[in-house]
């Protein structure tokens, strides 16, 4: 603590805006000393683990979706995967493809929402997208176009954007018709120019300069950038199977949060776009690598603000991968989309890369197919501790640079936002 500030700093951001859910930032600096610096999660718990109890496993994807309005497709798919692993169901290939495509639509939708509506106002020095609507209409237009595609893709592939209904244990309730897929592909292609414009805009923004050595946890892709299932890896060299997720997350309770915290090799670790990017760089679509190189985003980056850039890179990845997959799907036989199965007692874990990071659902079922135990570990839950520790490094640095209270507050909020936290989801 080098700089002596004249005025003590007392920041209390109650219910930080432009994030999903309710969280507070508290910062106190007195006599140059950090007296308080916390990332508090005050969301009221819903006790999803309890809600699942006693329900048939078939209900799992449907209920899981309700954990989060933004990444409900991820939740539904994770629950379906956990159930399918518990019952040893082999999901037909068509269903797997449609699921991943829907997942991509959600990723695009979620990232664009985050980048344009939650993050961009900070860089344009306004409180929300509302003033941007008139000051920079073209920016909103780009976001609207990309999200428009993502929305319609979700509607077609998942049933709707929030709380999908087509993801059934064993596959899908139905598949879109070829004609609909063709139309979707056309729409996707029409929107690629908007993606390029989006890139141009974000290229022009400079992310705050800040680094903290971090452990990054994500799925490890085998032959493609990972989204659904696979091994768990950490940038500190740990690698485990899906079933060992508890050893990977080590949840524990803290007083300042209704969400649990997690740790692995260090005090905290990070999940999300940057973690995926760092751990799976070489598996990105060539177009995405091209962009990463252009904007100077390299694997091994430890600036949490680069989550934003990694999200942009992933937007490119999912758009181009979707294009390839749609083309493939249109030419393939899509008649098999549901596996038949019988319920029996079992236990299964599903891991999946939600837009904000790795997500786990875990079910234990009895021989009637009733859920006897459920557990969910949410990406934002895994990030909380890391956000907290980031703040601990960021705030004194800013104070040392002589930043005023308002700026520190803003920067702290931007940091939290960079993680795109989904707080109600983390509390579930």
């Amino acid at each position, binding site marked *: 603590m080098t700089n002596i500030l004249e005025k003590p700093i007392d920041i209390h951001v109650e*219910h*930080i*805006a*432009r994030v*999903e*859910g*309710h969280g507070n930032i508290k910062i106190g600096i007195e006599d140059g000393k950090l007296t308080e610096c916390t990332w508090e999660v005050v969301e*009221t*718990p*819903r*006790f999803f*683990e*309890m*809600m699942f*109890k*006693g*329900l*048939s496993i078939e*209900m799992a994807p*449907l*209920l899981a979706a*309700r*954990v*989060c*309005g*933004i990444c*409900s497709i991820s939740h539904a798919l994770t629950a379906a995967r956990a159930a399918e692993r518990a019952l040893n169901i082999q999901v037909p290939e068509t269903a797997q493809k449609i699921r991943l495509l829907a997942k991509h639509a959600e990723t695009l*939708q979620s990232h664009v*929402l985050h980048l344009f*509506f*939650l993050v961009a*106002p900070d860089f344009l020095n306004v*409180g*929300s*997208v*509302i003033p941007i*609507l008139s000051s920079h209409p073209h920016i*909103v237009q780009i*976001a*609207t176009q990309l*999200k*428009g595609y993502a*929305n319609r893709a979700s509607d077609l592939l998942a*049933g*709707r*954007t*929030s*709380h999908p*209904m*087509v993801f*059934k244990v064993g596959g899908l*309730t*139905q598949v879109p018709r070829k004609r609909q897929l063709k139309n979707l592909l056309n729409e996707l292609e029409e929107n690629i120019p908007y993606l390029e414009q989006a890139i141009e805009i974000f290229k022009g923004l400079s992310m705050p300069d800040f680094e903290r050595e971090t452990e990054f946890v994500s799925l490890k892709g085998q032959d493609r950038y990972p989204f659904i299932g696979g091994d768990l890896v950490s940038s500190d060299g740990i690698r485990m199977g899906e079933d060992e997720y508890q050893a990977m997350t080590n949840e524990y*309770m803290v007083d300042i949060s*209704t969400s649990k915290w997690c740790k692995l090799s260090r005090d905290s670790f990070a999940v999300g776009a940057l973690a995926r990017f760092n751990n799976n760089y070489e598996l990105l679509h060539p177009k995405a690598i091209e962009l990463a190189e252009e904007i100077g985003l390299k694997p091994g980056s430890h600036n949490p603000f680069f989550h934003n850039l990694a999200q942009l890179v992933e937007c490119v990845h999912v758009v181009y991968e979707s294009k390839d997959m749609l083309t493939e799907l249109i030419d393939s036989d899509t008649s098999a989309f549901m596996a038949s199965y019988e319920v029996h007692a079992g236990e299964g874990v599903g891991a999946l890369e939600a837009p904000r990071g790795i997500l786990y659902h875990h079910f234990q079922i009895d021989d009637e197919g009733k859920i006897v135990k459920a557990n969910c570990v949410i990406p934002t839950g895994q990030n909380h501790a890391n956000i907290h520790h980031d703040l601990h490094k960021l705030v004194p640095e800013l104070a040392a640079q002589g930043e005023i209270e308002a700026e520190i507050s803003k920067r702290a*909020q931007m940091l939290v936002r960079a993680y795109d936290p989904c707080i*109600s*989801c983390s509390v579930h």
Partner: protein
Amino acid sequence: MKYLGIPLEKPKVAFFGFTGCEGCQLQIANKEETLADLLGAVEVMSFRLISSDKDDGYDIAFVEGSITTEGEVERLKKIRAQAKILVAIGACACLGGVNNLRSRFPLDETIQEVYGNHVIESGPVRKLSEVVTVDYELPGCPISKAEFEWLVRHVIVGVIPQLPQYPVCVECKQRIKTCVFDMGIMCMGPVTRAGCNAICPSNHMGCWGCRGAVDEANFESFIEILRERGFAEREIAERANFFNAFSGVDVIPQLEG
């Protein structure tokens, strides 16, 4: 702005979230195609999900989520005191929604299961109308943006919005969809209020009743039909209780803990 010569005021609106997934608020922020029109019609005073500007001078409060803690009760009462019109949005706010599924278990057991011995504040799951007077309810899990805009138009003009008084079947048939019962799938469509455009049956999922019971639904006959069609009691109970939409209907089998 005028409509038929009547000067229209831009209502000052605010959005609030309680215990829920924020999916309903997201529906409103989503589909940016009509965002400009919406912002032309209302003045957003506070919308934490997308905006850090906030102002407490609102007239209309859109409230999402159920009420589960005393702190939330207080916050909701404050909102009620300020708002001229309070609209409950979504199944959680209107019905209790999926949150209610945990009401099958005692609260202490619930906290113990999820948080162990850690102290966590929580209480029974309540829909908004159990705590304050609610002017309008916009049901659904999640709500539909089109219906939200429909409600906003009514509020601006000062006309009471009336939700459809017919069940989901009407919309399902209007979309010329195959009745999922023919495919062996259960559906709450015949007893659920329409307005969602039968989105779940159209996706071969059958309806789960997220929009609540339609007026004067014939539950006796409906449950009888379900049994005749061979659906198990547990299956019926799970579907009918999922959103807590039909609470108080005694012919519906209850979900066990």
